């Protein structure tokens, strides 16, 4: 049993366990908190709470015109980062094969060239996010350890993934056994590190943004504020 076997075996199980249980615990910590019902009379014509929530979830997808100048680059960079990551994680053939091994689920892969472009764009956007955080006085002021740790932990699987990106994906999948076992183990370990960190830091926003925007949407639409 070498490092890759350990990374694919017990460490993957442990990291997935931490990810799932930690995420559920974090969500439960919110859901189980007391909630004071809003008994005020809703504004006449106010939408249902569901429509209010949904409206603000969608509204939050793009900054308001008043903030577009200050928020445009950050927002665009965020979209490049998130879409790039999603394409790499869910569109790259070896990743789909990996997910298939664990879950039994599978779907068609995107061409390698798309993956290379997506990975390149993601790396650039990650670097830009770092530059923004380091150089913008506001972001420097409000940054915490979580922000720096999360940046490193997200960057590691991307960097180690690039290191094993030597052959075309068809060639990689055609092999019975991977030939770059050490680098691949390292790549997998960095992914597992990300899974373990996920519930502890701001990566949780991947789940929370829906509820956070939704809660404000409910509060404001109840008052007749058209967000």
């Amino acid at each position: 049993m070498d490092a890759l076997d350990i990374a694919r075996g017990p460490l993957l199980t442990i990291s997935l366990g931490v990810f799932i249980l930690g995420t559920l615990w974090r969500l439960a910590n919110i859901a189980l908190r007391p909630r004071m019902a809003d008994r005020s009379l809703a504004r006449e014509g106010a939408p249902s709470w569901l429509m209010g929530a949904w409206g603000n979830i969608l509204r939050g997808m793009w900054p308001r015109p008043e903030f577009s100048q200050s928020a445009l680059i950050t927002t665009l960079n965020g979209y490049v980062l998130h879409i790039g990551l999603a394409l790499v994680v869910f569109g790259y053939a070896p990743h789909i094969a990996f997910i298939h091994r664990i879950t039994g689920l599978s779907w068609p892969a995107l061409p390698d060239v798309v993956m290379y472009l997506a990975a390149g764009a993601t790396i650039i956007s990650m670097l830009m996010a770092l530059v923004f955080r380091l150089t913008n006085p506001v972001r420097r002021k409000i940054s915490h350890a979580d922000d720096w740790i999360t940046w490193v932990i997200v960057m590691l699987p991307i960097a180690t993934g690039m290191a094993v990106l030597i052959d075309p994906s068809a060639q990689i999948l055609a092999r019975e056994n991977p030939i770059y076992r050490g680098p691949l183990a390292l790549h997998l370990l960095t992914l597992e590190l990300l899974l373990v960190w996920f519930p502890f830091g701001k990566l949780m926003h991947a789940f929370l943004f829906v509820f956070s925007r939704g809660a404000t949407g409910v509060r404001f639409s109840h008052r007749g504020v058209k967000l």
Partner: protein
Amino acid sequence: MNTQVAKKPTFDQQGDLPDEERVAAALQSFVSEFGRTTTLHMDSCVRCGQCANACHFFVTTGEAKYTPIYKLEQFRRAYLRQASAFAPLVRALGLVRKPGIADLQQWQELLYDSCTMCGRCTLACPMGIDIAELVKEARHGMFKAGMVPERLALMDRAARQWGSPATPGEDLPDILAEVSAERGVTINCDLESAEILVTAAPAELTEHTKALADAAKILNRTGVSWTMHQEGFDASNIGFNNGDLELQERLTRSLIDTAVKIGAKTIVLPECGHAYGAARWEAAKWYGQALPVRIIHMTELLDELIASGQIRVNKIGETATFHDPCQIVRRGGLEAAARRVLAALGFDLIELENHGLMGYCCGGGGGVVSNVRSAPLRSKVFAMKQQQVEATGAKQLVTSCGQCRITLEMGAKQTKWDKPIESLLELVADNLAD
């Protein structure tokens, strides 16, 4: 000779609690605030800093410390240590430092002097975090610790004693009698029963007394039975701004109980933003059930009376611009009502560059207008507002909140700006058609 000027501290403290007890009181209160939505919002921040560009204090100073989410730093620490999903781990490993007395003293400026709880930042947050609401909750802890600006604490003490920071309730009949005699309008007071209970803002009981007469003039025209009442007359609710929950509840209850006592179906709030926030949206929280009375803002009353034809107004036929009070519009949903009243008055409305939902605060909300330490910050915000008003070229500047009006008047006086700040209520009253 020592020419050094001692730097004024940017914090005040009330009472003689030892520092440890102040911190403990603040933290205990912070923790009690962490209900479901607050927890969700505390957990959701990704530190993108986009809220900064929404805040008038950041926009006008460029100082990073005025970033809205940064104003919640001590609240965040308390959350992570006491109520987050991994709080025991955070405490055991010492991952987040416990807020101390020096932190609370330093943050008083950020929570009280440089936040008007206007909620513009809430609309900029890509995670939808209601930062203004979190600031309000953080203020509850600061009040418990006896760490609010002294001027606000003084008003709080007066309101606890009198039911208003302006005047004791028992003086109300005399004040109304004087205004009545001066303005030649009948102002009902302490009637045993009435359909409408009319309330006031502190400034209306002192310098803006014309508003009392104007409300009376309009209501007298409708023939509806109405009264003011010394047992529940000041709706401004200083407890809401200061973070004094006990006072907020007491003042709120006094309005509802008085309305119930006289059989009123409606409470009319004055032209005051925070009165609307405290009574219209939070009163039911204190009452524990749906309210037995309807609560409306003066702007809604004017809008309804004009729409129903109960009053008619003459057309003024000038250009005007409108300053949107944050608690009434952005956090209250009354953007259209004021504009309908302005249209009825025949104004050609020229909107400010930032208006309606996205209007900038006057700079004095959330008690900042009464906080003498905030004067330099307020003046910077005023300069921005003044520039926006002048850019419209409108002849009249109108608003529907007494606190906004006072803030803008203070700025105008300081800069010798020859622009009267008009009240929507007073414009309607002055232009009632026969």
